[in-house]
């Protein structure tokens, strides 16, 4: 548990990450993801409970050894802008007794052409790959990534994902936080969905999605209100929710549900403004569990 004054950031957290696994903490901003990883990284101390990493606890005389074995990328760290890529990685390399060669690490993250560019001149995606290089130069056993792709364009995000997958393929363990459900779904073996400092679901992405029991998600905006109970009672519909004027139906049988929905709308004389259907995702799991969308925060 971790408290900041009156606010309890994280409570009743119980999770175990296996070696070689990629584990994602998925949740909106303020869910307590960063607090959780920073406790594991030894950057914050929990107020109650215990955290164990590679068989040791922080503050029991093994801190330096632990730091040798982990690679960390923090949320929005800005590295010194006046150093070059090479100088930055070389600096970080010097902290580790063992590690990867500097140029090799730079090549790994695809920044060889930029090795003599100042950090201040890099794009957002390049800076993030440099941050990753500073973590990977340690040849860590565990890689901690706190929102590694927040604010990046899709291209840059794919590059980061590729690097994480490569690290995993070499046997590394990853603990990742994200508020992008695509990221968690693509990278993680298991996902813990966090909200208000608690884990509200923990399973593989496939199991989490399957837990909805829905084959399709139907979202629509209608010109007038329809009672949610009526929507939920339609054939083939498992559950109905509404936020910001958008109604969402979790549908077990789309062939039955869609005609029934349209008939219902007609019966109430309510015009339809838009309608979409998609395969259920982790986002839908989060909405089901919290009544809010991930990006609502």
């Amino acid at each position, binding site marked *: 548990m971790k408290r900041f004054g009156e606010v309890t950031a994280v409570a009743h957290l119980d999770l175990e990450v296996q070696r070689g696994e990629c584990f994602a903490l998925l949740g909106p901003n303020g869910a307590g993801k960063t607090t959780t990883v920073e406790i594991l990284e030894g*950057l914050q101390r929990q107020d109650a409970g215990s955290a164990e990493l590679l068989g040791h606890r922080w503050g029991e005389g093994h801190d330096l050894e632990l730091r040798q074995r982990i690679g*960390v990328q*923090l949320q929005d*760290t800005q590295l010194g802008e*006046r150093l070059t890529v090479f100088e930055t990685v070389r600096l970080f*390399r010097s902290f580790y*007794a*063992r590690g*990867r*060669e500097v140029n090799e690490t730079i090549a790994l993250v695809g920044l060889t052409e930029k090795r003599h560019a100042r950090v201040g001149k890099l794009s957002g995606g390049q800076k993030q790959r440099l941050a990753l290089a500073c973590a990977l130069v340690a040849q860590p056993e565990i890689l901690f990534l706190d929102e590694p792709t927040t604010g990046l364009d899709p291209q840059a995000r794919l590059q980061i994902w590729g690097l994480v997958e490569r690290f995993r393929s070499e046997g590394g363990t990853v603990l990742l936080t994200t508020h992008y459900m695509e990221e968690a779904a693509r990278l993680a073996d298991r996902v813990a969905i966090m909200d208000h400092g608690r884990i509200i679901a923990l399973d593989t992405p496939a199991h989490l999605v399957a837990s909805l029991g829905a084959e399709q998600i139907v979202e629509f905006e209608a010109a007038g209100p329809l009672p949610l109970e009526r929507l939920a009672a339609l054939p083939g519909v498992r559950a109905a929710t509404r936020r910001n004027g958008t109604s969402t139906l979790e549908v077990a049988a789309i062939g039955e549900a869609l005609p029934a929905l349209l008939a219902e709308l007609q019966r109430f004389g309510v015009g339809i403004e838009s309608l979409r259907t998609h395969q259920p995702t982790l986002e839908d799991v989060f909405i089901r569990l919290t009544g809010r969308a991930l990006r609502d925060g």
Partner: protein
Amino acid sequence: MGEASPSHPLLELTRARVLEFVREREAVFWVFVFPVLLALALGVAFRVRPVEKLRVGVVGDEGGQVTAALRAAADLEVVLLPDGEAEQQRRAGKLDLTVLCQRGEGGEGGVRLRLDPTRPESRTARLAVREALGGSTPTLVPILAEERVTAPGSRYIDFLVPGLVGLNLMGSGMWGIGFSVVVARTRKLLKRLAATPMRRSHYLLSFALSRLAFLVLEVAAVVGFGWVVFGVGVEGPLAVLALVCLVGALCFAGLGLLVAARPRSIEAVSGWLNLVMLPMWLLSGTFFSYERFPAVTHGAIRALPLTALNDALRAVMNRGVGLTATLPQLAVLGLWGIASFVVAVRIFRWQ
């Protein structure tokens, strides 16, 4: 796989510090150019009189022969003065040289020259007077003797240059370190470093070491400028000057770290830096002597690190003292430096 021997983290941290500093143009200006401009402006403003005419005082020239000969020289301004008055003016820098006329036993008279050879104007005046009196043959007036009287720190610029060296060592140490640390903190770089096995004392020491890298240049810029433009010499051993600067720089590196140990924003650290430095700007005798403050305050003022540094610098540069005479000041600086470094390491906020 792994590299055999990566370089030492302390070396890498220091190198990074140095590179970051040289690549910041504003910082280079404030550390190297600004103090020189300040010395130039103040040196010119407080010059006693323009350089062109060299002012020579003549004492006891009854026949008027000496005065006439000197007046014939174009670049000399000659004034007749009684001995006491002439000496006073020379000490105050209003006279560049005094010519003391002596009537010999059998009418065989001559003159003695009295000058401060550390002043370039006096050296020039000496040449001009020698030429005016003895240039033609037969020798008009024999020069019997030369009295070289060094009155260290007699000019304002002599007083000012060591003070500027001290002020610059304080300013570059405290601003340089205070700002880099707090910027690194606001950018969460400190937190990132804390997540590595880097030893935290190495990070803090790298600031002190990087200060040393610039020390030579920084001091040389001001001292060299004072020497070339205003003829402010270093009377004492250069090694002692170097030691005083070194200890002074380390002392202010420690104080800079201490001030930067907690603040979370640039505004906050600026306020603290000003709070710490402003009293020393005023009290520590950079621009005017702290002797002007009531005597009861002198003990406290001498305990300030900048006072200790300025006093030691003036002792070496103006009065030419050796190591022993500067030990009390070095002790003051050392205590401040060590104490603030130790406290800074303990209370340092990494995130």
